[in-house]
């Protein structure tokens, strides 16, 4: 086979593909649409509960674009929706937040037939250009698909008395995962907060090193709160000596690294957790992984750490870190009061 022959055959193949695409796209596809009936507008099938595998009531609305003599409306529910018998499809025409301008569906009544997914309701003649609605009122009529998903194979169709299809339009439905809240009287949401001690003596401060809590205090949290927990903290105005009227403090708002010889006072936090769905996140400003790192508190409550789920023995270790300079006034009464507050989130 010569090179020229191969090129020739490839060109022919490309042409054939183009012709096929053209024939399908321009001729066959429109024909596929044209064999269906004319489409209605403003078609809506609204389920009052879209949780998967849930019995529900709902509303059907549609607007005809033609003047015909309708005798029935057929609603085909998407695959996977479980339908009750025809007698369960009782209806009313109470306006339950219908689309604006919608009218009661004339001649609507309890369904006369349920075949596979198709439910037949009686109807009388509809006026073109008017949106009509009705509600099915018995939850035994429809149970949503057990698998969460979107289902686009629903159909609302109008028939005359023959019955001949007059108009139809598709609708899509969706179900979402079970929304049941499994909270019972025996397992209410609870939050436990335990502070290991209420004092943290820092001893003698030095200009040559950063002094840290000799025994860092811990907060232990246990909670079954689904949304997690949060801990906030504040202090007075830093480590203050009443005798010398001097305060050792740092500027809050960012993570600081203390340097020996330069006055500073921060709280560094590390975290751990034995078990639980939540991930503990220490506020970056108070990250105390670095030995001299931490953030300053002030008089307003600042978020120290959060978690986004349940916690079994989540522990926050609070390490106070202080440095002084050569001119920091000597005194034995430097004190501070740190307030920490914990809560289960909502």
């Amino acid at each position, binding site marked *: 086979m010569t090179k020229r022959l191969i090129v020739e055959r490839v060109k022919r193949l490309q042409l054939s593909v183009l012709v096929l695409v053209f024939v399908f796209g321009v001729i066959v596809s429109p024909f596929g649409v044209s064999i269906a009936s004319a489409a209605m507008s403003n078609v809506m099938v609204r*389920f*009052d*509960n*879209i*949780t998967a595998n849930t019995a529900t009531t709902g509303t059907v609305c549609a607007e005809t674009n033609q003047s015909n003599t309708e005798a029935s409306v057929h609603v085909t529910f998407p695959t996977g929706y479980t339908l009750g018998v025809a007698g369960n499809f009782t209806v009313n025409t109470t306006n*339950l*937040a219908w689309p604006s301008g919608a009218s009661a569906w004339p001649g609507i009544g309890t369904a006369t037939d349920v075949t596979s997914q198709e439910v037949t309701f009686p109807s009388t003649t509809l006026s073109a250009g008017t949106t009509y609605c009705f509600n099915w009122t018995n939850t035994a009529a429809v149970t949503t698909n057990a698998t*969460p*998903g*979107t289902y686009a*194979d629903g159909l609302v169709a109008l028939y005359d008395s023959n019955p001949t299809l007059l108009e139809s339009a598709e609708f899509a439905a*969706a179900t*979402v*995962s079970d*929304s049941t809240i499994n909270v019972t009287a025996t397992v*209410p*949401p*609870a*939050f*436990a*907060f*335990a*502070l290991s*001690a*209420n*004092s*943290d*003596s*820092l001893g003698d401060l030095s200009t040559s090193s950063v002094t840290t809590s000799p025994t860092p*205090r811990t*907060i232990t949290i246990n*909670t079954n*709160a*689904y*949304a*997690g927990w*949060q801990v*906030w903290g*504040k202090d007075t105005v830093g*480590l203050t000596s009443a005798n010398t009227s001097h305060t050792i403090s740092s500027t809050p708002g960012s993570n600081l690294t203390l340097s020996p010889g330069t006055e500073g006072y921060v709280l560094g936090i*590390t975290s751990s957790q034995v078990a639980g769905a939540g991930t503990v996140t220490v506020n970056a400003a108070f990250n105390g*992984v670095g030995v001299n790192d931490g953030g300053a508190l002030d008089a307003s*409550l600042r*978020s120290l750490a*959060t978690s*986004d789920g349940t916690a079994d023995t989540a522990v926050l270790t609070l390490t106070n870190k202080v440095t002084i300079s050569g001119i920091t006034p000597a005194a034995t*009464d*430097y*004190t*501070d*009061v*740190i*307030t*920490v*507050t*914990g*809560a*289960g*989130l*909502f």
Partner: protein
Amino acid sequence: MIKTWLKRVFFWSGSVATLTMISLASPMVSAQSEQSGFSVQVTPSPLVATIQPGVQSKLELKVKNIGTSTDTLKIETRSFKIDEETGAVDLSDNSPAEIADWISYSDPTFTIKPGEWQTQEITIDLPADTGFSYSFAFVISRTVVDKAESGNTIAGSVAIFTLLNVDRPGAVRKLEVTSFKATQSFYEYLPVRFKAKFKNTGNVIVQPFGNVFIQRGSSDAESISTLPVNDVRGYIIPGSSRVIDSDWADGFPVYETVVSGNEEKEDLNWDWSKLTDFRIGQYTAKLIAVYNDGMRDVPIERTATFWVFPWRIALVAFAVFAVFAAGIVMILRKLYLAFRRGKSRKSKSNN
């Protein structure tokens, strides 16, 4: 005899004196001993209820002392707000002015022994003409905190977030999804994180839920994966927004967070049993969120598209393919040359 008697008297009087001194000294020691850490369990937390206007509503809050010493505690009402940018809860030291006057406690201060439960009865006495929802916090703390003479004093407290919907005409349950997107438009490997930002535009507290369906196209009938949205049943208070994350991690390979000491890092997990979950190409995430408007579920739909392209795997695959193809080409070329040589030799011999 007298000597022995004197010895006994001396011994007993000494013992009594010693015991008396010890018994007298003990309260001083305990008074100077360090106050134990604040340790409390509360339930329910959060406290969520629907109350009626114009009638007294009673809420129960149980408090347990899980510490080792008897504590005297107090309960107070505090306000909070949601940070619009970060969604974080900002707890305040201030009392919620709009509802504080209508709240009263059965025991504003109470003493509770270790292991003991105390039930706090909270009365909410809303007037008939009131708001549609209230959100605030009850804060429990010690009445007195012993301050250290030097160093730090750490005072603990517990907040109980309280969300109250008021059952009255005119309540509007309305929710909007102000944005829904993947955190990146391109990923090399899963997980893909989606962020759906909900805004409560009504006047009552709502609790949306739903799913993110991962599909090849937005109109696909079947989804590849179904992710929960707000499966933690988080609430959104009126006027506030909340960003709810959903992660699609159903892939091969997939990044996983590994904790090593205090450090967290992302490691690729090559779980070969999930080889069929290899992801490549463009995907559509369809969010269907639902809230109940008081009568029915109201669905909200949003879509976002993103790409997953494991370019390093693709590069290796392409290199392997290129080497393989080059090998095939070389073999075919050699065969072709051999064939031509044979043909020319044949024609020469024929000549």
